[in-house]
């Protein structure tokens, strides 16, 4: 046997493997028949989430307890996988869905993250009937429903609500520098100028996603609710002068931030405020749960207000659950969704997790001071969605915005940033 023989044998083997797998890849597109009967011994429901640690896990356990009392014959399988805001979890879920092995129900950020990904992929079912029969339309804010629907179909059951547009501040620092809590962007900049001159770090900022969080609140604060919504439905032009002003405001806000932002997590950054090392921090209201765990007192060690320019607007994000197409046990899955949307379920979950109910009829006395004020706002404010946390833009669009933002943070080229945002909307958003 000659050398040539071996070389050609190897070449053939490799080619066969490559070709076979390429065909295999194409052939496995059809979802596998995943409707295997549940294991003997009755019904079970597998629920996939990223609530694995701290208050989230405890809240989920509390909700599971409610489920177990209501449906003692259904076994609850908690398939939670952690990962910073669900990133690992989402990769696992994507892999499972593509192998035709969906869990019965899974967690997702309400809004376009779910719609753009799973509705577009034909992986989840509309839940309008459930909303009708459970009377949820009456107890959830009217402005919320369109944000979690597509073409009139509602696709998820929101369990909790977090607010993104919160300005956290250190009351002592503001008092010492005789600064009133700013309500407009201009007041905010003036306050931060004063703080800077006094040698205080005006704004605490962390790693890249916290910058995106700042960006979305500044966009909202500069454009107002209506034009902000327009960014996501295609009626506000990303290339317009107003957006440019908003981006300039964002750029200016960043100049007030601590110099080591790139090396801080959101926790580290939020901690600067309660430690007295910085005056302001823009972060979602899970920061409040963190301050409490640090043993800090509301109104004494930290204060809160809507991000300047967003008074009267509630920029929300929500964890919600869906019903899988091809769920191994759809009945059990619906039972879980009923609990997730119920007053009892949400009252069990939210006080422990440190968020408010998506329903507006939860018992206020279960919640702490901050959350009570958030409940009032949730019931009365204009509701808009968060970008960073998956409400207003689909995943592809958000990831393009993230890349554009990353480039802007490192090179500071505002014109290029705006062009990249325009292109991102064209490539993955509704812009034409």
């Amino acid at each position, binding site marked *: *046997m*000659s*050398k040539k*023989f*071996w*070389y050609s*044998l*190897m070449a053939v083997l*490799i080619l066969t493997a490559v070709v076979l*797998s390429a065909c*295999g*890849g194409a052939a*496995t597109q059809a979802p*596998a028949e995943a409707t295997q009967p549940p294991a003997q011994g009755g019904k079970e429901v597998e629920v996939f989430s*990223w*609530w*694995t*640690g*701290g*208050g*989230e*896990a405890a809240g989920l356990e509390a909700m599971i307890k409610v489920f177990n009392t209501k449906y003692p014959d259904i076994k609850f*399988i*908690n*398939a*939670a*996988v*952690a*990962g*910073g*805001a*669900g990133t*690992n*979890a989402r*990769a*696992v879920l994507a*892999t*499972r869905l*593509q*192998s*035709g*092995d969906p869990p019965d129900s899974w967690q997702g950020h309400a809004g376009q993250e779910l719609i753009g990904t799973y509705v577009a992929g034909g992986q989840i079912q509309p839940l309008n009937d459930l909303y009708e029969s459970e009377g949820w339309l009456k107890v959830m804010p009217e402005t919320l429903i369109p944000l979690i629907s597509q073409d009139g179909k509602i696709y998820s059951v929101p369990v909790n609500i977090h607010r993104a547009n919160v300005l956290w501040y250190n009351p002592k620092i503001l008092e010492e520098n005789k600064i009133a809590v700013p309500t407009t962007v201009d007041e905010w900049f003036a306050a931060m100028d004063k703080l800077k001159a006094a040698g205080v770090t005006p704004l605490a900022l962390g790693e890249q996603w916290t910058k995106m969080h700042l960006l979305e609140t500044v966009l909202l604060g500069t454009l107002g609710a209506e034009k902000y919504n327009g960014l996501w439905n295609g009626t506000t032009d990303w290339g317009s002068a107003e957006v440019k002003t908003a981006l300039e405001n964002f750029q200016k806000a960043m100049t007030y931030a601590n110099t080591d932002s790139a090396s*801080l*997590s959101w*926790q*580290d950054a939020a*901690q600067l405020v309660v*430690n007295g090392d910085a005056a302001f921090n823009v972060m979602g209201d*899970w920061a409040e*749960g*963190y301050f409490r*765990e*640090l*043993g800090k007192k509301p109104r004494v060690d930290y204060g809160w207000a809507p991000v300047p320019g967003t008074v009267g607007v509630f920029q929300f994000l929500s964890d919600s659950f869906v019903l899988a197409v091809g769920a191994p046990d759809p009945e059990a899955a619906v039972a879980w969704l009923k609990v997730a949307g119920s007053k009892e379920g949400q009252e069990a979950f939210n006080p422990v997790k440190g968020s408010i109910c998506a329903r507006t009829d939860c018992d206020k006395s279960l919640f702490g001071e901050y959350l009570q004020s958030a409940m009032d706002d949730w019931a009365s404010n204009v509701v808009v969605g968060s970008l960073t946390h998956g409400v207003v833009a689909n995943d592809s669009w958000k990831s393009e915005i993230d890349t554009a933002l990353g480039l802007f943070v490192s090179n500071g080229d505002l014109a290029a940033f705006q062009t990249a945002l325009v292109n991102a909307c064209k490539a993955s958003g509704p812009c034409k």
Partner: protein
Amino acid sequence: MKTKSLRTGKNWLYGPLIFMSIFYLLPMYVMLVTGFKPFEEVDLKTMWALPRHIAFDNYVEAFRHLAPSLRNSFVMVIPATIISSFLGSINGYVLAKWKFKGADVIFPLILFGMFIPYQSILIPLVQFMKSVNLTGIPGLILTHVIYGIPITTLTFRNYYASLPQELIEAARIDGASMLGVYRWILLPISIPSFVVVLIWQFTSAWNDFLFAVVLTGNTQWPITVALNNMAGSQIIAWNVQMAGSLLAALPTLLVYLFLGQYFLRGLLAGSLKG
């Protein structure tokens, strides 16, 4: 004594060794003390400070989370480590000393597999494993064995390649078969290579998160998934996390201690004479 002749007058080496030890210990010190701190004491500014009280709460809590997965990890890691090390050793032996025609092509081809970015092949991997009905821990073991082949083969082949050919020829003249040479000549002197390969395979299988999380269900998750799950998606208690990661690393540390004894000298010298 051979070791003595090497040792004389080398005490100055403790200087650089201790200096390097400090470099290795600094981060571990931070992990250890953070593991003893209550949540509100975890602060960048005070990371060098000792905890105000010594409390084992975090370690206890972490252990409570990790303990149920411990068995899964052992059941998965031990076979995965041993099988892939032996496969690598056999492959290395053949590809270094019994080159059939084409062996020099096969070796780089196997080796190249090491560079495959695992994240990019998760989907076909899971689809394939489902289609052959190999999920759960057996599937995970197989995956670790297979993706371990390139690195184990590399290590053994390069080690065996450095051994003189006369060693094998001498044994052949004495009538040993091909496998006999492996069993009686090469295996005994490849203990140090086994040590490094076992260390690698144990560590990577023990610390693997990616394959485990997509190939196994929640009752079969190994310790890394449990460790990851101790962190929530928003607030992360780094004190418990660090305590947990030290606990999770203990079995690996024991393996290092145990295998470390077998960094033996002079194995080859003896066999050359024989």
